[in-house]
């Protein structure tokens, strides 16, 4: 058994208490440790991805109990990819937070950050549905802390809403799990898949309820209509690096849908035949619209970015809703892209908003390095809106290409393309206001504002580098689209190989 599989959970879980309880008085030490830990996490994630490339489903039996009785971790291409994505994103975001001093604006940033990573990695790696709940809670509670990091009126109020919404979601999760256990008597995902297969439609009412409730739970995380309302206020009020890290949180929801509703309730299970997609698809279409309207109608930069995230989740889930290997591969590629795109946009938005001091889309005096920020914003916006040459365009093409069923095509294509148009127009309006119109406002107009706060220094390399790194990743995703897609394509194939998953997890008792 490969002990490295547990390391993405245990490493941050051991580091975080040290950060929170031992190093809490020394920010420099905490920074060094936190960054070092995250670098190590990236290294481990790379290693695990290389392990997973062999196409095997690797099992880690916690407590040495056999599945389905104990909890197992499952490392396959999908979970490895998600952990790798998380760790890379985390490293970039962390460097941004350190460079911009966000981490010092409140207590316990690094500890909460590492706990959050632990929760996310745990959610990706687990092969047990109740354990998925537990790690959802770990990542959520850490996110509550990060969300309200450094306080402030608007943030606190948004924080309350965020917490309440997710507590409601967690409650529903438990209702769903109760129903699931009551109807199958097991919690292991592979075992569930096995059991659900055997449930005839005449006896499927309960398991169907469980399936749909679970989907709503995941939809809340994935910001799917009509449970997406919480996201814009949360993301736009969160500290920007946190919002950037949250880019992966929506993906946790999408991942859970992929994992659970493909393996357990996926195609071929008579009991829930067609059930997951029926609702997911129209909801995803509306989500695209919600995101697009939000971007176009935004009065402030951060909500604009947040709505763009909503829109991108809609696009992603439209592809997921097809529940086919081909569309899933496209969705996975787009997931990689949209995670970095959203993060990049939040990071650059942070740099801009910090200097403008407001995020309202009105003209204020031009800040230092206007050109630099304009260029970064332009690139990030291109990424988010899915325009070439960055990877979003390819992702969108892949999704469009994968959705060719006549009925889904008309809706999905219209929504994605029209949504893109509104998004582009919205970003153009915003960018024009932020970087072009602002050049026309004489600095004297807001002398008062300048006087009350200290003058802003130009951004150093350290502050800009993380954003640039994200953009470089988007470019790399585009340039190396072929190999990347090969990986996600095989990932999707593996994901849809339910029998292989079941036999790997419970069949042979796991490989050593």
């Amino acid at each position, binding site marked *: 058994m490969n002990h490295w599989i547990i390391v993405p959970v245990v490493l941050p879980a051991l580091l975080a208490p040290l950060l929170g309880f031992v190093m809490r008085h020394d920010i420099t030490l905490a920074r060094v440790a936190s960054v070092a830990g995250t670098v190590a996490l990236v290294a481990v994630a790379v290693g695990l991805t290389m392990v997973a490339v062999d196409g095997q489903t690797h099992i880690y039996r916690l407590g040495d109990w056999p599945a389905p009785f104990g909890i197992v971790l499952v490392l396959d291409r999908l979970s490895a990819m998600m952990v790798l994505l998380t760790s890379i994103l985390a490293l970039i975001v962390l460097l941004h937070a350190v460079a911009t001093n966000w981490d010092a604006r409140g207590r316990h940033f690094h500890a909460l950050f590492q706990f959050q990573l632990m929760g996310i990695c745990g959610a990706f790696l687990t092969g047990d549905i109740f354990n998925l709940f537990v790690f959802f809670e770990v990542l959520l509670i850490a996110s509550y*802390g990060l969300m309200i990091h450094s306080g402030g*009126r608007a943030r606190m109020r948004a*924080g309350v809403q965020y917490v*309440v919404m997710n*507590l409601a979601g*967690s409650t529903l999760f438990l209702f769903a799990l*109760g129903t699931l256990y009551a109807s199958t008597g097991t919690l292991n995902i592979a075992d569930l898949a096995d059991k659900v297969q055997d449930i005839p439609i005449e006896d499927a009412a309960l398991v169907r309820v469980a399936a749909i409730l679970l989907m709503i739970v995941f939809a809340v995380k994935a910001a799917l209509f009509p449970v997406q309302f919480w996201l814009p206020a949360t993301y*736009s*009020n969160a500290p920007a690096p946190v919002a950037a890290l949250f880019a992966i949180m929506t993906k946790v929801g999408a991942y859970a849908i992929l994992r659970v509703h493909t393996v357990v309730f996926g195609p071929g299970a008579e009991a829930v035949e067609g059930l997951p997609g029926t609702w997911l698809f129209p909801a995803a279409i509306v989500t695209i619209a919600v995101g697009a309207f939000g971007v176009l109608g935004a009065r402030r930069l*951060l909500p604009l970015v947040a709505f763009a995230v909503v829109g991108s989740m809609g696009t992603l889930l439209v592809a997921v809703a097809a529940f086919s290997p081909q569309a899933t591969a496209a969705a996975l590629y787009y997931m990689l892209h949209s995670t970095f795109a959203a993060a990049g946009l939040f990071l650059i938005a942070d740099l801009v908003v910090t200097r403008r001091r407001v995020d309202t889309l009105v003209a204020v005096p031009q800040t230092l390095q206007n050109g630099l920020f304009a260029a970064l914003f332009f690139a990030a916006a291109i990424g988010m809106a899915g325009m070439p040459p960055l990877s979003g365009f390819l992702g969108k093409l892949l999704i469009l290409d994968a959705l060719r069923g006549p009925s889904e095509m008309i809706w999905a294509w219209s929504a994605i393309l029209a949504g893109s148009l509104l998004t582009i127009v919205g970003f153009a309006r915003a960018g024009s206001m932020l970087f072009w119109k602002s050049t026309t406002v004489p600095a004297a107009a807001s002398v008062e504002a300048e006087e009350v706060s200290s003058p802003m220094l130009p951004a150093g390399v350290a502050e800009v580098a993380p954003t640039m790194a994200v953009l470089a990743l988007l470019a790399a995703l585009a340039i190396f689209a072929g190999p990347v897609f090969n990986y996600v394509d095989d990932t999707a194939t593996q994901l849809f190989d339910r029998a292989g998953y079941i036999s790997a997890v419970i069949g042979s008792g796991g490989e050593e």
Partner: protein
Amino acid sequence: MEVLVATAIGVLTAGGVYLLLRLRTFPVILGLALLSYAVNVFLFASGRFAIDMPPILSKYDTTSYTDPLPQALVLTAIVISFGMTAVLVMVALGAFLVADSDRIDGDDGDADDEGAAR
């Protein structure tokens, strides 16, 4: 018995949902507390009921035991929801102290007047 527990879960859920939809943080917290009771009992019920068969193994006789797994799950859920509630209480208190309002909806227009000044 089953009817009573099911209805109790239902009433707890209904009360919880009703309070969850209120406009101030405190009743919402109460609502979540009720929901938490409801869901704990619900989850517990997924193991079905048995009277006087606690899953404490006895050396002497080989009686049957109730399903222990949902109990363990409920324990985990109770602890987690305790942590969550504590955080929510604190965040709600913080929001009240900072904003001088314990309204939970952001519709009184004050979310904007800071323009999210950082």
